[in-house]
């Protein structure tokens, strides 16, 4: 069986898998960005306890493999009564620990990206904002973060792309993502190579679409650089 035949016969598997991958990636990226922002602010905090915690968190997450984190989160949080049922064919009790582990991982990397973006904004901007009577929080929200976002967009896009690819490890917990379904098709056809090509093309397509979207956003942010 060639690649076209396999795809035509088994496309529902690939489609279902892609759906799960997209949902998991999307939620992970969103959670990772929000929490990453939070950890970055803690990391830059004047309070030792906050910055110390953020530093420790980043060190631990960056220093251990994602797969190990996934298993630890899964087994450690086994006592949590994850909600029953499923959304779009994705079993919640299985997928929620995965999303949690992936987000926790993404958070650490995003935090470092955001921190460097914030620190790259000229300190004069902060001084000017404070001199106008703004509080530190107001200066951060109105002046620094909008400029930092522009700095970090390329690096953040990189992290998003990485995350889409990294979600493939959730197959080890039996979550029906793209790679999990790929495995089913391989077993059914005894013909692995075309299956992997199909999966590769799907991942590539997802990331190209994501890349285009980020390009568009970046261009819109550039309006103040003319």
């Amino acid at each position, binding site marked *: 069986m060639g690649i076209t035949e396999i795809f035509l016969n088994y496309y529902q598997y690939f489609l279902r898998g892609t759906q799960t991958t997209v949902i998991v990636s999307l939620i992970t990226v969103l959670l990772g960005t929000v929490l990453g922002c939070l950890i970055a602010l803690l990391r830059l905090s004047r309070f030792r306890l906050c910055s110390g915690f953020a530093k420790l968190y980043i060190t631990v997450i960056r220093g251990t493999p994602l797969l190990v984190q996934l298993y630890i989160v899964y087994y450690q949080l086994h006592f949590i009564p994850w909600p029953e049922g499923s959304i779009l064919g994705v079993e919640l009790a299985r997928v929620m620990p995965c999303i949690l582990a992936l987000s926790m991982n993404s958070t650490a990397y995003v935090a470092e990206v955001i921190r460097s973006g914030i620190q790259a904004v000229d300190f004069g901007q902060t001084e*000017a904002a404070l001199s*106008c009577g703004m509080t530190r929080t107001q200066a951060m929200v109105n002046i620094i973060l*909008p*400029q930092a976002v522009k700095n970090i967009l390329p690096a953040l896009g990189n992290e998003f792309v990485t995350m889409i690819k990294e979600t493939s490890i959730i197959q080890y917990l039996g979550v029906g993502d793209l790679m999990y379904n790929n495995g089913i098709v391989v077993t059914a056809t005894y013909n692995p190579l075309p299956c992997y090509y199909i999966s590769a093309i799907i991942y590539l397509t997802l990331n190209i679409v994501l890349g285009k979207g980020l390009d568009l956003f970046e261009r819109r942010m550039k309006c103040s650089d003319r």
Partner: protein
Amino acid sequence: MTADNVLFEIKGLKKNFGDLEVLKGIHTTIRKGEVVVVIGPSGSGKSTFIRCLNLLETPTEGQIFFEGSCITDKGYAVHKHREKVGMVFQQFNLFNNLTILENVTISLKKVKKVPAPAAEEKARALLRRVGLEDKADAYPAQLSGGQKQRIAIVRAMAMEPDVMLFDEPTSALDPEMVGEVLSVIQDLAKEGVTMVVVTHEMGFAKKVGTRILFMDGGVIAEEGTPQQIFEDPQNERTKDFLSKVIHVI
């Protein structure tokens, strides 16, 4: 002892950066309506002094009273103080992510909670005064240095501060743009705006200043009216400094 017209009362102000003693005890009073011009050689602590006045630098020792309250007290609401003190920087520091109009209105809207239409009306009127109303929708990156600095002055004035601080407002400008910025500052002085100006423009100091502070080595070495300082300096260091900066060709 705080008479009605006293704005700043500075007592024994000291500032260290690590082991480096930059301010070694500043004592002075700044009254309403005064145009205090701070001159002195590089590294004499002029900028540090003016930055202490709106607490961008936290004094190591000493007290600063502003309109009767001690702003160097622990727990004093620093941002409330800064609302009343306008600051103009050497590097302009316009908000790069905002248009010119937004640069002027943002503190009105966010700090003083002025409704957007009123803030914009006020901002446009101020922009018109410095001849830059047509730049309202431009971004800082599209402006010349002189234009940026005029906007920075407008941004500070929009808050209707009790005093304006200028930290070397023309030092980062191309020579042909110095005049346009100084004339805006001079206009404000004529209107009776209280200001403290750190500058190397001796002609401006002489013409606009009501009092000159000559700083050297972290202290005020000599102070007086422009006539006293420029025509009859008493301190050797003042004489030495002026002989170096006033070039007779």
